[in-house]
Each structure stands twice: as structure tokens, then as C-alpha cells.
């Protein structure tokens, strides 16, 4: 069997989460925002997969099951996000999140 260092995986998913967080905070285009959220979500899923791979047994299988469910959640989230993009585009003619001020006081 292979035996990869756990440190590398934690570093990778931490880096991906940081990149996603950075993207969420700086990008103004709604689609780029969705992509940044996807990067952060993938970091989470990767976390579940490698801890499942190192745990073994029923607990590991449960970890992989959670990863499968999370992939479904992420796909759902993109679908709803794109519906919001289309609604925002129809309402404002742009997909800049700075223009979405409907609920601001």
C-alpha cells in the first residue's frame, strides 16, 4: 500500500481553503465568486477523503459517504448560484455583486 505524508494533504487543503477565502473576499464577479466557493468546498471534500483513507474501517467508509453527499451539495449550490446570477443579470444587467443592493438600507 502507499503511504503518503498526512502533512502534505493538510497543507494542500489549507492552501486551497485560503485561496478560496481570498477569492470570496476580493472578486466582484458573481461567477468568480461561485468558483472561489467551489475551490473552498473542494478543500473540505479533500479533507474528508484523506482522513477517511487514513482511518479505515466503518469510520472511513462513513467519511467517504459524507464526501459523496458533499459533492451533491456543492452541485446543488452551483445550480442555485447560477439561478441567482440569471435573476441578477435580468434585474440589473450586470453580474457584479457590488450592484446587488436590493436589500440594503
Amino acid at each position: 500500500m502507499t503511504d503518503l505524508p498526512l502533512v502534505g494533504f493538510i497543507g494542500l487543503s489549507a492552501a486551497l481553503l485560503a485561496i478560496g477565502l481570498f477569492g470570496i473576499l476580493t472578486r466582484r464577479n458573481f461567477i468568480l465568486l461561485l468558483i472561489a466557493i467551489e475551490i473552498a468546498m473542494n478543500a473540505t471534500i479533500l479533507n474528508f477523503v484523506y482522513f477517511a483513507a487514513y482511518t479505515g474501517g466503518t469510520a472511513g467508509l462513513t467519511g467517504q459517504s459524507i464526501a459523496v453527499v458533499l459533492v451533491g451539495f456543492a452541485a446543488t449550490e452551483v445550480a442555485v448560484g447560477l439561478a441567482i446570477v440569471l435573476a441578477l443579470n435580468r434585474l440589473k444587467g450586470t453580474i457584479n455583486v457590488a450592484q446587488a443592493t436590493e436589500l440594503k438600507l
Partner: protein
Amino acid sequence: MILEELAFLVLALVAIATAIAALLVRELVHTILWIAVFFVDLSAIYFLLEAPFLGVLQLGVYAGAVTVLLLFGIMVTRKRIFSREAATGIGAVPFALAVVTFIFIVSVVGEFPSSAGTIHAYSPADLSQNLFNVNGPWLLLLGLIMLGAVAGAIYLVREGRE
């Protein structure tokens, strides 16, 4: 042994590089191309971790469906598909926050044993057994949430709304 470590190192570097490139390039279509490479790369990491079902799922759902959905979103929201974005600055505070998050998470690495032992491989049959028996409620919850999400998405984009 050393071959797998080398493969992981290359895949991890490609993942980080493509994630950064996807967020920093100024043409939105190039962003989608980079993010597609990112998803395929993560799928390769799952195969390296001996999780073939998740690798295939990543290829199908992310590299396939999500990429096409995002491309569709770009296609219907702009007149000229290859137009450039206005440059957005890096931003000192978000960058610092991202670095702090990275350091904070990596600092807990010492809590885990450095050589965690072997990687366990699970057959898709075992995984689906667990997924539909033990974790059946979560799958049902996912189905209900997807149903609600589809209803909400249709409500958002329906005709005759001003």
C-alpha cells in the same frame, strides 16, 4: 513509494497553481479552463488516495456538470464571451486573512501522527453499502435539499418577473 510521493507533490502544486490562476486571470472563459484542470487534478488525487468512486464522481459532477453550468452562466450573461474583466486589485486585508487562515490550519499538523500509516482502499460496493444503509438518512436529506433547490432555482428564473 517515492513515485507516489512525487506524484502527489506534482498534483498538489498543479492544484494550487490552477486555483490561483483561475481566480487571477482576467478573461472569464480562461478561468473556466483553469478550474476544469483543477477539478481533473483533484480527481487524480482521489485516485491516488485509492478512492475510485469519488474520483469518478469528481470527474462527472465537477469537471463535467459544474464546468458546463458555469460556462452556460457566462454564455447567457455577456454579449461578447471573450471580453475582459476589469482588473480587481489583490487587496491587502483579504490576502493577510487568507495567509492567517493557512498558517492557523497548518499549525495543527503537529496534533496528528507524522506517518499516519497505510492508505485504506474501499471498494465501491462497500461504499454504496455504507452510503445506502448506515448513511441513508443523509442521502434522503440530500435528495430533499436538491428538490428544494431546484424548486427555488425555477422560482428565481421564472418568466414574468420584474
